[in-house]
């Protein structure tokens, strides 16, 4: 098994997850839970591919994807922030909505080839033995974007005034409100940003990492895995990245298990029985479940919880005390 290839592939797949998950982290830190990520990724993948295919310009496609994800998330924002509807159900409905939109508007694009985001190799860093080959050589530009996104988002959340406000709104919106922070505007903003990231992540699949449009198989559950990743990583961008890359590596690893004839000296069952590949394909989903279980009990021990106001609509009290 080619470990270099496994890690490289893991980083690529992980980038998709981490872009979507960091977007969702920002949204959830402000107190809004957006379960429509899968739908937004799908609509972003479709928009990205379609615009890129029709205009021949892949960057326009990216822009279209970001806009698509953002617009869809605004629907979620209005319903949950202004109308104070249940965030869980609204997010779900947006998944259906996004999937429906993507399927209808993406009709006829299946199997087409479109332009792709270029790849690049970072000059000095790619010379580092082993790590250079894995992480800095011949990767899609979006992968490098992912590398930058992680420390930037961590810095933003924890070390800036805006990040302080973001965290306050998610923990105790009433406190922030009385100090003049606009709760509604903050939540709208970060829900929109989260949606934009989700759209970008979708486009990362269709015009970069796994180019093409294959209707709803394009995303195939990665949006949900991204949401689970946010919980598992305790709303921390570094842990999101670690989790995302780890996930990608494990996924590729399990698929590669089919390759060799011998595994640890014994006959490789996956090589000899091709139908066992279905169990390998189950791996990402089983891993997500395990990650969620582990994450919740670890959180219990460390007394780390979700942002305290997550999922609770904010309403300035009608009556004083």
């Amino acid at each position, binding site marked *: 098994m080619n470990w270099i290839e496994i890690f490289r592939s893991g980083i690529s797949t992980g980038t998709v997850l981490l872009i979507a998950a960091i977007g969702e982290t920002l949204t959830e830190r402000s107190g809004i839970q957006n379960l429509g990520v899968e739908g937004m990724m799908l609509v972003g993948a479709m928009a990205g591919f379609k615009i890129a295919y029709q205009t021949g310009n892949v960057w326009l496609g990216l822009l279209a994807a970001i806009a698509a994800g953002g617009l869809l998330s605004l629907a979620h924002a209005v319903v949950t922030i202004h109308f104070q509807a249940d965030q869980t159900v609204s997010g779900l409905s947006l998944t259906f909505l996004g999937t429906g939109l993507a399927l209808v508007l993406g009709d006829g694009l299946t199997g087409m080839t479109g332009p792709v985001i270029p790849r690049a190799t970072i000059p000095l860093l790619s010379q580092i033995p082993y790590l250079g080959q894995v992480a800095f050589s011949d990767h899609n530009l979006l992968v490098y974007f992912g590398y930058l996104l992680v420390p930037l988002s961590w810095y933003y959340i924890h*070390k*800036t*005034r*805006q*990040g*302080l*406000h973001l*965290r*306050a709104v998610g*923990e*105790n919106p*009433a*406190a*922030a*409100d*009385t*100090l*003049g*922070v*606009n709760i509604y505007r903050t939540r709208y903003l970060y829900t929109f940003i989260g949606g934009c990231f989700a759209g970008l992540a979708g486009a990362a699949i269709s015009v970069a990492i796994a180019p093409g449009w294959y209707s709803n198989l394009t995303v195939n559950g990665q949006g949900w895995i991204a949401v689970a990743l946010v919980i598992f990583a305790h709303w921390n961008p570094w842990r999101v990245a670690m989790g995302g890359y780890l996930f990608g590596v494990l996924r590729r690893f399990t698929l590669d298990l089919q390759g060799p004839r011998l595994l640890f000296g014994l006959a490789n069952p996956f090589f000899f029985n091709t139908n066992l590949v279905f169990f390998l394909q189950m791996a990402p989903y089983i891993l997500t479940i395990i990650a969620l279980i582990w994450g919740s009990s670890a959180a219990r021990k460390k*007394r780390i919880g979700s942002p*305290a106001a997550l999922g609770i609509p904010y309403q*300035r009290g*009608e*009556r*004083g*005390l």
Partner: protein
Amino acid sequence: MRAISPIKDGLMTFTETPDAVPAVEMKDIVLRFPGVLANDHVNFTVYPGEIHALLGENGAGKSTLMNVLTGLYKPQSGEIRIHGKKVSFNSPRDAIANGIGMVHQHFMLVENQTVTENILIGLDTPRFALNLKKFDQEISELAEQFGIHIDPTAKIWQLSVGEQQRVEILKILYRGANILIMDEPTAVLAPQEADELIETLKGMAAQGKSIAFISHKLTEVKQVADKLTVLRRGRVTAERVDLQDFTRESLASLMVGREVIFNLQKCEQTAGREVLRLEDVSAVNNKNLPALRNVDLALHEGEILGIAGVAGNGQSELVEVITGLRECTGNIWLEGKNIANKPPSFSISHGLAHIPEDRIGVGTAPNLSLTSNIIMKRYDQQPVSQKWQLNYVAADALAGGLKTEYDIQAPSVQTQARKLSGGNLQKLILARELSSTPHMVVAMQPTRGLDVGAIESVQQLLLNQRAQGTAILLVSEDLDELLSLSDRIAVMYEGHIVGTICSGDFDITQIGLMMTGTLPQDLKSPSYGGDLPPSDESLSPSAPSSSFDEVLEHVQQYGEGQSSSEQPNAEGLTPSEESSSPSEKLPEEVEQHGEGSSASEAPTPPEDPELNLTEKERVLRKVLGEKYQLGDE
């Protein structure tokens, strides 16, 4: 022009002259919510250096009015002038920019952030990057300036309630507030901490700050305020009055609109057999910190045991372990059955009724009907239950009967619970719990947030239960309520039962000290009731009230105790022990009074008609507050 009166008792007082400019002038404020007229042409004026109390019962509109002043709500009509300048606030930021700051009753703090971070929220600086160290320094300096002790790098959840309140004060001082609004600030403090806060406020007023003080505690208002405005149902019923013109009863009438008699008939009662016993019960709270430590308690038929203590010292956890909502070690015997660590259904089936602290979040199901809420614990009993079915007709009949009996105001039994007012919601809960003829009732904060009329009803219902022989465990933040209802009071501090006192020996100072951790045996007082009376002994007061001389004696002891180092002083702490607990403040206070009383003027309002009190009487008045009747010896 501000006229400055001669210095009195170390305080400068600013008085109004014809051309003095008020710091705050609210005129004709009208604030309307859909269906509710919260403020009806309200006037409110505060001069610089003045402490102005805003009095009214819950729902009268005082907090709403202050929320208008802080820019949270915009009034439909009316005018606001700050230092003579007309202003219009569109958001809290505008109010903050005009020097207005509010300390809320429920603290607005982000628990898992530090003091400094909390203070910085909402500010426009720094532009982007957050350099916490620099701000930590700034805030330390600001705190020192006002004599406030706090560690800026501490996280909020690590601080005590009193310290958290200080953070709230720092928050508004940091923003340059000249007009401070305090919303029920002493609700969460022990009596000694409350006194300390009042001193801090008086100090700020002396420096020219204007203070609006919202309260519904009549005693406190008389203690601290210069002027008073009373609100009732959104209207002003008394504006800028001087306090000494009113007695407690007349103030209450202004608040409520009818005559209020502060007198509950509690008959003498013989305690019966033991109903509940806690043996060595310990438990942790939600943060895994110890909340109950080796608690021993007993409760008898026909007895009300009051649990006193500042919120957060284990009372909630105590109620939860008894009602089966929390795990614990140790035993809890309810009429011979061990209910510790058993689910709530077990204790409910053995006759335990529970009136929860949170009537909306725990006590009722908001979207279900009155009927559904009433049958919450008896869906398994006749006549409501019919094998696997629920007989809704019978349930409605049952609910209808209880609705009439307990006078629950609602359109019908089908009305959803969330449409009921606080008082009616509480009556609903009481109807449900008390109608099942329980053996024991656990009542937590049963009258919190209710208006005076509802408070009377609830308290009378509890007394009726007591007369029928039910054992009642009453947890309340309202010391007055505990004193008037309880047969015995147990005081909790940091998860311990510090001591238990029988009704004949109730002494507010003693209880106040116990609430801050003083052990009763360190107080030289006649009784501290560690052991329980044998079950057939009468609980009627047999010993005379502690004499004044004994109280004066132990009050003066603290003054001495402070000067002798290395000896454990009256609080049970050696002076070298690190503590910023309020009990340490007491000696200084007492010294002040001790000294002050030897000067020509006593620290009472200058126009006090009782100016000719002897020194003894003045100290007693200070210490016992409203409980003191002229002529007591």
